[in-house]
């Protein structure tokens, strides 16, 4: 990792340190908020990473998350168990992943169109089923008690709460999150290890760059791509379940509110790499948290309105895409179905 590669990480940590020095209490709340807001982004971003690294573009992240949020909230409400909800969320998202795989791998359809279709399908199906099941206009009833993932206090969090520096960071930020946040963060090193240190990862990356060579080596391109798309489905499922049963208490129609697309932006921003994905989504979460805390951020010279902060992820992505700050080169075989014989 050279300096250019870790530019985002330096930027993000710089903002955090600056904020903590300027206003410690606000920074603690804001960074905590950023951690919660970035978790669905991070999971969806990693989902896209697996899929796109294997050569299957996925703009259906939004739809899969939405479907997962709905199935998770519904099952969590009916059974009263957030864990069963999580399983249902993963199931709902996986079903859409399979459709995407079927359309774009088996039938060699256009991956972007399939993704758009999945977004529409999820948006309509969730409301339709929800209305029939609960009669609340697509909402699910509010979850209570075990139907939601509650915050977990890590061991020793109270003991170190008064220690300067370590206390606020460990007991204020790291402890007290829901388990899915820890899962999301653990996925980053796991993804890195899988992609760069295992045989499966090498093949996965190869199938996104040059599927013909993978095929020549006697490995099934179809199977590898299906595996990648399924992993993406599982990760989107966790993200959706976190939205509905961790962050809020139930499903509201269109509750993903464009997070799947911000995750895609983060994926481009991170240039399809796991560690950069962590910092890109952290940056986007941080921007949203800052916009939430300071509707009109006074930087001394200029006053930045929250609308600008909310637009910043997209602006930054355009800048990256335009090639001003290093180039974002997508996997070479991305978007193209693999045709074995003509």
């Amino acid at each position, binding site marked *: 990792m050279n300096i250019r590669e870790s530019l985002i990480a330096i930027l993000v940590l710089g903002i955090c340190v600056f904020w903590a020095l300027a206003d410690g*209490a*606000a920074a603690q*709340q*804001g960074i905590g*908020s950023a951690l*919660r*807001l970035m978790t*669905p982004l991070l999971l969806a971003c990693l989902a896209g990473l697996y899929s796109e690294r294997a050569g299957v573009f996925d703009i259906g992240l939004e739809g899969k998350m939405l479907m997962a949020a709905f199935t998770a909230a519904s099952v969590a409400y009916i059974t009263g168990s957030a864990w069963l909800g999580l399983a249902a969320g993963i199931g709902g998202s996986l079903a859409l992943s399979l459709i995407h795989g079927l359309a774009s791998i088996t039938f060699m359809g256009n991956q972007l169109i399939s993704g758009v279709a999945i977004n529409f399908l999820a948006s309509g199906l969730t*409301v339709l089923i929800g*209305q029939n099941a609960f*009669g*609340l*206009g*697509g*909402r699910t009833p*509010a979850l209570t008690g075990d139907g939601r993932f509650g915050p977990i206090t890590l061991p020793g969090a109270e003991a170190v709460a008064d220690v300067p520096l370590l206390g606020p960071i460990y007991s204020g930020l790291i402890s007290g999150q829901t388990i899915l946040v820890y899962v999301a963060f653990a996925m980053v090193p796991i993804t890195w290890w899988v992609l760069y240190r295992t045989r499966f990862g090498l093949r996965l990356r190869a199938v996104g760059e040059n599927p013909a060579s993978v095929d020549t080596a006697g490995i099934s391109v179809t199977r590898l791509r299906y595996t990648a798309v399924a992993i993406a489905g599982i990760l989107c499922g966790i993200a959706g379940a976190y*939205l509905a049963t961790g*962050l*809020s*208490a*139930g499903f*509201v*129609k*269109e*509750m993903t*509110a*464009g997070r799947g697309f911000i995750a895609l932006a983060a994926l481009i921003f991170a240039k399809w790499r796991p560690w950069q994905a962590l910092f890109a989504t952290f940056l986007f979460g941080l921007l*949203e*948290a800052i916009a*939430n*805390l300071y*509707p009109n951020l006074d930087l001394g010279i200029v006053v930045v309105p*929250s*609308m600008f902060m*909310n637009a910043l992820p997209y602006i930054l992505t355009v800048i990256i895409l335009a090639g001003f700050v290093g180039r974002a080169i997508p996997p070479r075989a991305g978007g193209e179905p693999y045709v074995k014989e003509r």
Partner: protein
Amino acid sequence: MSLMKSLLAGAALTGLTAGAALADPALIYDLGGKFDKSFNEAAYTGAARWVEETGGTYRELEMQSEAQREQALRRLAESGSNPIVMTGFAFGDVLTQVAGDYPDTKFAIIDMVVEAPNVQSVVFTEEQGSYLAGIMAGMASDSGTVGFIGGMDIPLIHKFECGFAQGFKSVQPEGSVLINYTGTTPAAWNDPVRGGELTRAQISQGADVIYAAAGGTGIGILQTAADEGILSIGVDSNQNALHPGQVLTSMVKRVDNAVYEAFVAGADLEPGIRVMDLAAEGVDVAVDESNADLVTAEMQAAVDEAKAGIASGEVAVHDYMTDNTCPAS
């Protein structure tokens, strides 16, 4: 031959149903959706009451996207529905274009003024209801800081904000009101996650009563406020029962009354501007068994006094939409 027969029969049947539907009223819900536990649901409640009392039928449509508005209006007007009631300011531009093409059909638009000889524009004095909510927030707040979270950043929601701030300042002149808006696109009406985070941000800045005027986003705001143990104020429909004992009150907008009365009037709906204010029971703060323990006798007295003051003109609540400024912020 038999195919021809059934086709003819089908056509005749369609003609019959169209005839039967002639004087049926119609209701169009805005993007928030029919069961948003808020604005649109209030409209549905009014229509349901009309059905219960008259046994009539009505047609309804739910908007799924901006592009459907004109199509929906024209379809209903052409199929003979009368009157056609629509909820939401966003229909304003479309109705201005469409109303003239159907001079025999009566339209009623809620939350917007459209000047046409066959349109009734129903507007609510949200600033008065919000003023009452502000008084209650001011009396319930120990920290001297309360919060306002709006949905989409539009003048109509600023009207809520401004009335709320004026009411709060009338009780705690030195207190402060934190103001956030969820976004600038219609997605801001359906983002409970962001609503929850905004609530946490305001709590960290000291807010102990938060007024949510944000449609479906409000579900997340009320939930987080209840989780964090502070009070919240609902909007449009009575949301007190969502978290009994933790929702201070709800600023109810009697959209149901407006819809009900328009349906009752039928084709004789009176055009012009209809102002649903405190006196006409168009707006109010809801007190029921869910929040009875939160509303003290002094609070109720202060609210009643303010109501009397507003009715007599003694208390003037500024309407943000008249000049796009707010004296209280």
